[in-house]
């Protein structure tokens, strides 16, 4: 019998079950795109029939870091940029958990960029939602890695000389196996994409455009948006790496020209996840490691029997 009975429990869930009683009203600014992520995640969790006790939501620091304060599940609000390595290990320790990590564009593409790249490369079976508002919000409006070139702020008084980072292209090249972009103003698509991302076996990356009405007033509200999978103007095969790459490049350029493109950019469904690869080579046990510590019949091996002979 599992010591973690919430995992895989068959339940009918209402999305309100993911609203915590203690602080149901988030402190995000009125009109903030972050509300859209929270709503989409609650909707997706309910649609997937997940229970709050089998979900682990990891966040970093920033406005996005508050996601798990307002989402009722196991949560780990970590430190700036470090949600992914903690999330990866929790999934390795107990693969039955549904692990969702979230952060902002500064958190995920800036300070945590190295972890993002390697988590994508390794194709861990977790979902990563990046609240991309093209600015640092919590620290009051500094230029971020995705801010457009020329962006003026208190830390870039003459406008940023830096070309913005290309989150989708970076993700593809690093090795993510599901890559999508959605926007807070597009709640149905956002929910559907998060459902797909959680169901995907491998690293799923959702670049979530979240408008910041307080510190990024000049920026677009990400409307109107175009769904590239629906629109007849954008023909491409999102299982084809080359076509996906081209579409991403176009999308990243278009955003700074005022056209908001969203949708599923890359879906690689036949690539084994990291956990599967690791089991394949004999470096990860079949049974969840976390269960072993509750198994009274398990016989723990000791160094005296296993290793000492070679030192004699």
């Amino acid at each position, binding site marked *: 019998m599992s*010591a*973690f*009975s*919430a*995992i895989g*429990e068959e339940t009918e869930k209402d999305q309100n079950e993911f609203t*915590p*009683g*203690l*602080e149901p009203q988030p402190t995000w600014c009125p009109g903030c795109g972050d509300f859209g992520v929270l709503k989409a995640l609650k909707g997706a969790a309910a649609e997937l029939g997940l*229970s*709050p*006790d*089998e979900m*682990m939501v990891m966040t970093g*620091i920033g406005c996005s870091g508050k996601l*798990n*304060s307002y989402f*009722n*599940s*196991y*949560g*780990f*609000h*970590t*430190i700036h940029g*470090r949600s992914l*390595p*903690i*999330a*990866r*290990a*929790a999934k*390795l*320790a*107990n693969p*039955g*958990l549904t692990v969702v990590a979230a952060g902002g564009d500064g958190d995920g593409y800036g300070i945590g960029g*190295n*972890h993002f790249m*390697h988590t994508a490369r390794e194709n861990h079976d977790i979902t990563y939602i990046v609240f991309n508002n093209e600015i640092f919000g919590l620290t009051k409006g500094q230029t971020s890695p995705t801010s457009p070139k020329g962006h003026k702020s208190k830390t870039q008084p003459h406008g940023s000389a830096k070309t913005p980072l290309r989150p989708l292209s970076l993700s593809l090249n690093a090795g993510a196996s599901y890559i999508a972009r959605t926007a807070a103003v597009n709640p149905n698509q956002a929910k559907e994409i998060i459902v797909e991302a959680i169901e995907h076996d491998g690293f799923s990356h959702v670049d979530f455009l979240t408008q910041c009405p307080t510190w990024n007033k000049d920026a677009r509200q990400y409307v109107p948006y175009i769904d590239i999978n629906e629109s007849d103007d954008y023909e491409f095969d999102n299982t084809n790496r080359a076509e996906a790459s081209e579409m991403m490049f176009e999308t990243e350029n278009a955003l700074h020209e005022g056209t908001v493109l969203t949708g599923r950019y890359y879906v690689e469904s036949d690539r084994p996840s990291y956990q599967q690869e*690791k089991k394949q080579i004999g*470096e990860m*046990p079949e049974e969840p*490691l*976390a269960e*072993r*510590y*509750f198994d009274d019949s*398990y016989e*723990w*091996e*000791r*160094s*005296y029997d*296993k*290793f*000492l002979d070679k*030192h*004699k």
Partner: protein
Amino acid sequence: MTDHELIWRIAGGSGDGIASTSQNFAKALMRAGLHVFTHRHYPSRIRGGHTYTEVRVSADPIQSRGDGYNFLLALGDSFARNPSEGAYYGNEEIKPLSENLDELAEGGVIVYDSGLLDASEIENFDERVEENNWHVYDIDLRSMAREHGREVMRNTAGVAVTCAIADIEPDVIKSLMSDAMPDKILEPNLEVFDDAYETVQSEYDVDTPDVSAPTGEHDEEQVLISGSDAIAYAAIDEGCRFISGYPMTPWTEVFVIMSQNLPELGGISEQVEDEIAAAALAMGASHAGVKAMSGSSGGGFSLMSEPLGLAEITETPLVLVEAMRAGPSTGMPTKPEQSDMEHVLYTSQGDSHRIVFAPGTAAEAYDQTRKAFQIAYEYQIPSIVLYDQKLGGELSNVPASVFDEEPNADLGSVLSEAELEEAPHDDSGKYQRYQHDTENGVSPRSLPGQKGGRYLATGNEHMPAGHISEDPDNRIAQMNRRMQKVESIREELDEDGEFNTVYGPEDADYGLVTFGSQQGTVEEAAAELNEKGHSVKVLGVSELMPFPKEQVKSFLDSVDEALVVEMTASAQFRGLVQKELGGYGDKMSSLLKYNGNPFEPLDIVEGFETALLEGEALPDNRTKFVPKVGE
């Protein structure tokens, strides 16, 4: 070094098999009933560069590399570069012979491979030999090895010559070779061994040198173990089945031992992108209910500062090991030092609350690493095992029975789902994992996936169920409870009373105080001082945090004066004692060493007699004396 000891130094080039040859030599003599202790000296270089390993052999228990040495086996450096003397590295080819003469004892033996080394290149070699009464054997080991197949077997030939001169029974070595070498290479190696042994016996005078291996007997079975082995085995015996890391000398040894063994034990090893991730992964696994560890050396440990603080405030059990090397920054990667002590005690923002053990021997490394795991999981706190390149890499014989302990995979303060049903929850149904008032400061945790256990772990200050809060009363309650855990651990350690080591006569006039890996060396120095008529005892401290105030205080109160011995340049450990005890600066002088080599017992004897007692300057800059406050 006593008259009855052999201290054998095998010198050559990095990459020439010096380490494995010396390891086999040490193990063979251990099997023959002797006590052995090794010391490795190697450069931070990819290939080549002068390297040596010393094997000290004694009939009695030994705890350090000893002083100097009396038998040199100088092999060639087959990867030597820049043979011109004007080059940066100097004449590297001759170094295995030329670099090792200063520390060779009078009457000592030199065996060198005349196939690769030419003693005439060394200035005044013959004069020095005569002056020091050294016995020189120039033997073409390389040609001997070539005749039987491969040049690399000159190491075996050199060991055979050692046996012939130092009266070591050939079978002692040969039976170990049979165990250690694959069949394919065993036969030619045995042939080289016999050839070299017989040639030297018949063609050279092997009886004149007064240097020979003692004979002895162990009263129980021994194993040849390094500090790194002991740390890894302790982790495995505590049910640690997850390690994450990034390679860095000298911590890599522990990482490698774990990575090679965990898959077979159904565990997981993760080599990750950097040390921030390494510590974060260990936390993630631990948070989800798997006993986990990570580790690094100085620079890598700097990157762990962030996750370390997160583990403190989220009360996530986390075991880290830190293998010190000479700093600052990249410093001297392959040389030991103890100067990361303050870094490890205090790094990360806020008031640190963590456990730090600094074991003195391989056996202590095993016991204290096990205790580190037990405390980490019981008290939900980071535990750090602080050691160094010296303890990690040196091999010594330890009774096998030290490791004959039951495994313990207990997760510590974790509730089961049944217990969670009875536990307090807030209005959202979240488990109050951080309750204010608990008996010893510990509030039991739940694990993700457990029904009824959900809560928020956060690096912000938080309410009982994890909700972020800056309420002053809650802040004080949570901070006090976390700090209370450290007090509870102090009480538990006082009850155990096992980890700090006192040595020497109780009523001694003088005290030597040290921490971590210098302990054995300091004890040997004290024995020597007492033999010379001084009155000295030793306190070796392993519990750095929480600090054993009472024990250290009563030790210092019991002596007239103390000499604090440590491998730092700024007397960090003496500073810690003063900080913790609020005084004693006028009672403690320091003897420091930071030239890249660990203390030898005579360094301490000299520091005590010359600097502390006589108030005179030390003859050279190998060690530094810092007088007590007010002098």
